[in-house]
């Protein structure tokens, strides 16, 4: 059975090689990906938005994305916005360092103590944003999510990138306009394999699944539900004829 992609938060760091702050973005992103929130985060290399394919460019449409930038040029945030989608949140290390009254980070290859401190602070801030985007409330003192009876522990992992992941998309016509819906083919496949058919009461269930990955305004919900049901029926029909 195909797995529905779990809702995760995308992390895009500028990784700027020219500044110590660029190294901080890279190390902070890795700390979140590998240690702080490994189960909730994914990453992609910024240049893949240009050098990669459509699946790579769908990254920020699929994942609510946090851009981590080293300086006020904000390459990660602006690059993500230009080529993939609006970042859900954005952090600039130089601003964070100033706000927190940290020392000046130095050392592109080997960060000084202030730089290492900035990595910790930046990673902590990103983890907070991840929890906020996933509607979690992480209690830093307890080291666990609030209002969760059994805290979900996250095992450290080695980060992997989502380059070439080819996030599945499908175009559908809604109100006379073509709309690209993220993850729709996988959702249809999942519903079919669960034995669900294109009946009226399935419309809201389909809509809810689609809303996990795509923004749907309240006044468009009815049209979306009708369209999804129609498309699901077509999917069912086509799948039936191909098997």
């Amino acid at each position, binding site marked *: 059975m195909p797995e529905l992609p779990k809702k995760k938060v995308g992390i895009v760091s500028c990784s*700027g090689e020219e500044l110590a702050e660029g190294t901080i973005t890279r190390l902070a992103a890795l700390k979140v990906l*590998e240690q702080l929130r490994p189960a909730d985060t994914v*990453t992609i*290399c910024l*240049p893949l938005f240009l*050098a*990669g394919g459509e699946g790579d460019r769908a990254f920020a449409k699929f994942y609510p994305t946090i851009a981590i930038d080293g300086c006020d*040029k904000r390459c990660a945030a602006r*690059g993500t916005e230009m080529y993939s989608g609006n970042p859900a949140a954005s952090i600039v290390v130089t601003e964070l360092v100033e706000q927190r009254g940290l020392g000046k980070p130095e050392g592109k290859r080997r960060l000084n103590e202030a730089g290492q401190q900035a990595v910790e602070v930046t990673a902590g801030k990103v983890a907070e944003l991840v929890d906020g985007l996933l509607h979690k409330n992480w209690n830093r003192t307890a080291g666990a999510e609030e209002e969760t009876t059994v805290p979900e522990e996250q095992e450290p992992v080695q980060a992997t*990138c989502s380059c070439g992941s080819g996030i599945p998309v499908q175009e559908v016509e809604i109100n006379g306009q073509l709309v690209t819906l993220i993850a729709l083919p996988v959702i249809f496949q999942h519903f079919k394999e669960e034995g669900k058919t294109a009946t009226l009461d399935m419309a809201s269930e389909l809509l809810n699944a689609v809303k996990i990955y795509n923004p749907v305004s309240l006044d468009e919900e009815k049209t979306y539900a009708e369209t999804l049901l129609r498309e699901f029926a077509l999917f069912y029909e086509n799948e039936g004829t191909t098997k």
Partner: protein
Amino acid sequence: MMEKNKKVIIVPCSGIGKPYGTVSREAAYDVTEDLRPRQTQLVPLALLVLGDEESRAVVAENQAITIDGCKLACAAKMVQQSGGTIAQEFAVLDFYRTHKDLKPQGIAELNEGGQKLAHALAEEVTAVVDGLLSANEGGENA
């Protein structure tokens, strides 16, 4: 042929999901900070992605050496898209295939094998830099 006083541009990939990306970054630092600091210039990939005018101009006016961590070759593609000329493309993965004893591990911090691989790669990149500069009348090699 390069004109006098031109630098060789080094563009590593900004790979964050594999140790090979870290090797490319480390090798670029080796070349631009330790081995040929006066003859080379590192250009961050993120600035090319953003279309930064200054970075594009530097890439367009000088020969570039790209160091990519994986087959997607972001650094090479971005230099080409920025109007640059690539003198030589290096791929860490291919380089590792010829140095199997130096297996890179760790992304935030490379293991010893990874560091040695980066240094060895930097030596090869430096040889190309020297070759380009020697073709430049009056160019300095060290």
